[in-house]
């Protein structure tokens, strides 16, 4: 196993939890692994896949995440990986279906499991491992419940009841129980590690206004050393801040968001990894699949939606184990933005009333929902996300021959979700305004107790001084003005070295 780790992945040792998880998976046990962000969760199924005879099917909630995983595998020379999702056009989909048996890693979204053709092809394969990534999405108590995830439990038979590996970074006890129940894996091997990342010092800084926040941000970035990420909830603000940073002399900064195309995304990620950039102004689209060890700080310009995603995002700092900083900037009324986002992501009562009226006046409309998407969007004033929720629900409902009256069920789900999400924001709010140890707060939320004493714990334990962020001297690639020099650097650098 160690040899495989070295040969395939170039690592010399496992991180916490990896070895145990891999052993359980290879032994064919159902496994629930809760490992902190940045601990290399994907290795827990990548390595076993090379040891198992058949195909590994990985179910993942985010399309961009899937592509990242495929890219990561390409990086180690594994080309038998595919992201089978709605991004593929018809032709590519058909090509992929025809050649599905050639792949060792198949990444897909839960909604794809409802495609008959796809399931047919899958059932012909020898699936020796089913991975449910971000498994907390299956729980209504989780911060990121996705109804489509519930369908995973029902396709197990067609897949030939393969061993399951459920992966998550952050799950409360309730969520863990939900995962096991939904996936029918009661007798699972549980590998649970603390969510704590001791080398990340936790800080919050309160300012009075938006403008002051930008000023403070610029000041901080100037003073901090090493590579960092600044997270934003809006693309626009990310762009504005990146621009002001550049105008204030911080040149090696770039934005990153979901609006970039593949080439741009790869280039910016790689520039960052190759230390051509110091700071990324990003939305939550950035980070998954970025294996950069020396990120020294993560700053949140906007308030996170919940503790789970906050932990996930700050967890990208300090993967090398060296002292790192998580800083959250807060201005009065900052909680309004996440509340608005929650509001727009869900379907509220009045929208629901309009929907019901629309479907009940003509029952045919319900069965032919696709035809009326535009009308529905206008009538109920639905956002893209809430339209997706409606369609997901609808797809399940008509499979069970449920009428439009079943929308009442969705209403109940929505209300519950709304409450949960507001509570989640409330938890972050309390975290920001707490006057006691921040680490303790986080651990308490996830049902853990603080076990070790940490030097640079948080601003309440150690005051507002940041830990000493030791940065290695980074090799800075000279920006040649001369195009021939650049071309030489790209194509002839190794040759010239040999000549010397």
């Amino acid at each position, binding site marked *: 196993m160690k040899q495989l780790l070295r040969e395939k992945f*170039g690592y010399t040792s496992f991180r916490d939890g990896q070895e145990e998880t891999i052993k359980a998976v290879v032994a064919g046990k159902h496994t629930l692994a809760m490992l902190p962000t940045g601990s290399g969760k994907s290795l827990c199924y990548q390595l076993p896949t090379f040891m198992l005879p058949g195909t590994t099917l990985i179910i993942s909630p985010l399309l961009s995440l899937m*592509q990242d995983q495929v*890219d990561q595998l*390409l*990086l*180690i*020379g594994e080309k038998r990986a595919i992201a089978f999702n709605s991004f593929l056009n018809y032709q*590519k989909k058909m090509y992929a279906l025809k050649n599905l048996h050639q792949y060792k890693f198949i990444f897909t979204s839960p909604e794809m499991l409802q495609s008959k053709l796809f399931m047919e092809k899958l059932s012909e394969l020898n699936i020796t491992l089913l991975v449910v990534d971000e498994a907390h999405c299956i729980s209504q108590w989780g911060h990121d419940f996705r109804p489509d995830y519930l369908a995973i439990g029902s396709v197990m038979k067609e897949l030939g009841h393969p061993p399951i590996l459920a992966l998550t970074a952050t799950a409360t006890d309730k969520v863990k129980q939900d995962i096991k129940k939904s996936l029918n894996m009661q007798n699972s091997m549980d590998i649970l590690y603390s969510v704590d990342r001791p080398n990340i010092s936790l800080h919050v800084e309160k300012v009075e206004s938006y403008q002051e926040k930008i000023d403070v941000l610029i000041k901080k970035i100037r003073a901090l050393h090493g590579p960092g990420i600044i997270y934003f909830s809006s693309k626009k603000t990310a762009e504005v801040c990146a621009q002001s940073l550049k105008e204030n002399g911080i040149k090696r900064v*770039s934005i990153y968001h979901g609006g*970039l195309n*593949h*080439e*741009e995304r*790869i*280039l*910016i*990620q*790689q*520039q960052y990894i*190759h230390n*051509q950039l110091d700071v990324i102004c990003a939305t939550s689209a950035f980070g998954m699949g970025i294996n950069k060890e020396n990120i020294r700080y993560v700053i949140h310009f906007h308030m996170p939606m919940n503790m789970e995603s906050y932990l996930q995002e700050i967890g990208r700092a300090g993967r090398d184990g060296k002292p790192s900083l998580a800083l959250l900037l807060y201005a009065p009324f900052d909680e309004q933005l996440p509340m608005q986002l929650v509001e727009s992501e869900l379907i509220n009562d009045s929208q629901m009333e309009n929907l019901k009226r629309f479907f009940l006046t003509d029952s045919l409309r319900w069965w032919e929902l696709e035809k009326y998407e535009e009308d529905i969007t206008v009538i109920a004033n639905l956002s893209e996300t809430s339209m997706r929720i409606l369609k997901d629900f609808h797809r399940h409902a008509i499979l069970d021959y449920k009428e439009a009256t079943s929308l009442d069920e969705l209403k109940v789900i929505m209300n519950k979700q709304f409450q949960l999400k507001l509570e989640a924001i409330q938890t972050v709010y309390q975290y920001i305004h707490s006057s006691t140890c921040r680490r303790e707060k986080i651990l308490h939320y996830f049902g853990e107790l603080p076990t070790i004493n940490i030097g640079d714990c948080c601003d309440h334990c150690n005051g507002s001084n940041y830990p000493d962020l030791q940065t290695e001297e980074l090799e800075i*690639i000279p*920006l040649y003005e001369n*195009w*021939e020099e*650049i*071309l*030489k*650097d*790209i*194509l*002839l*650098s*190794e*040759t010239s070295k*040999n000549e010397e």
Partner: protein
Amino acid sequence: MSVIQKLVLFCLKSIENQRTAYAILHLLNGKKSSQTIQDAHLFHLKRYFHVLPHLAREEFNQILDDLLEENYVTCLGEGSYRMTEKGDMYLQEYDEPIIPRYLNGWSYNRMDKLFWERLSLMVQVISNLVAYNGRYLPIQNNKPHLDWLKNFIQRNRINRHELATQLFKELQHILTNKKIDPLILILRLTGSNRIGLTQQQAAEQLQMSVLTYQLHFINVIHMILTEVKENNTSYPLLEQILETEEKNEWLQLTQSTRKTAIYLNQGYDIEDIIKIRKLKQGTIEDHIVELAIVDSSFNIDIYVPPEVQRNIIKTSTNGIKQLKYIRQLVPEASYFQIRLVLAKQKSAVSV
């Protein structure tokens, strides 16, 4: 005046107030409608077809507003513009072809994107080969490109350092002594230890707007394409980027059809080719039908108006396949047009 403003001004002059300014937007976007394709021919603007596929309407309006404000044109209302004396004078001072001189959108609009994607991948892969680095992310994730490149490396089984040196020489040679700034291309290239810039970053570094940069970039690509096609023996590696899929289609054609295709690509129409090649009209029409069969992306809109195409398709899908009867039901179509539409349908089905 920015190079884009110049380009739009030049186009406005060329259409001589016979079309609205948006005809130019469609042209620069490379809209595949018969109107735009006809305009490109009629006003001799084929070189600028599809050179700014992402130019947005708002950006285009801004350019028009700027030209108005500077008094190069006057607005006659309804999107119609006329040159002012100042505008005329300005363009006359340029007897040389308008700046990005290598643009040739009509010939290269299906090829330039592919060429860049493969070139950038080729540079990245070869750079990593000479660095003995097997772990890197390909900057293009298009499977056919990756397959093509693998094939390319296998075909050119020479020492990796020789391969890199050869590619260096070809790029160095092709970019030297041309009326372009090589950095426009070079800044975008990714190697083993140097990651290329995005379009925005390159524009920023060269201190130009993204649109201006895009136009210069496409100009450089078209320059390379022309140079490689004209002197293919000097660029054995770059030439291989072009052959590929095209070559397969190409090989299926008869010698004579290939000649016709070359003329068509250079912008000659059927009448011109009849004169130049001293062949009958029917023969050239046969060639065009052949091209439509072999090349699924061959656009027949300039030969058959879309409405006529629809009528022909409707009739033929009703089970009538014989040209004679289709002709009776769609009298506005010629035999050539009917054959062309049927040929097009066939090639679409076989894809």
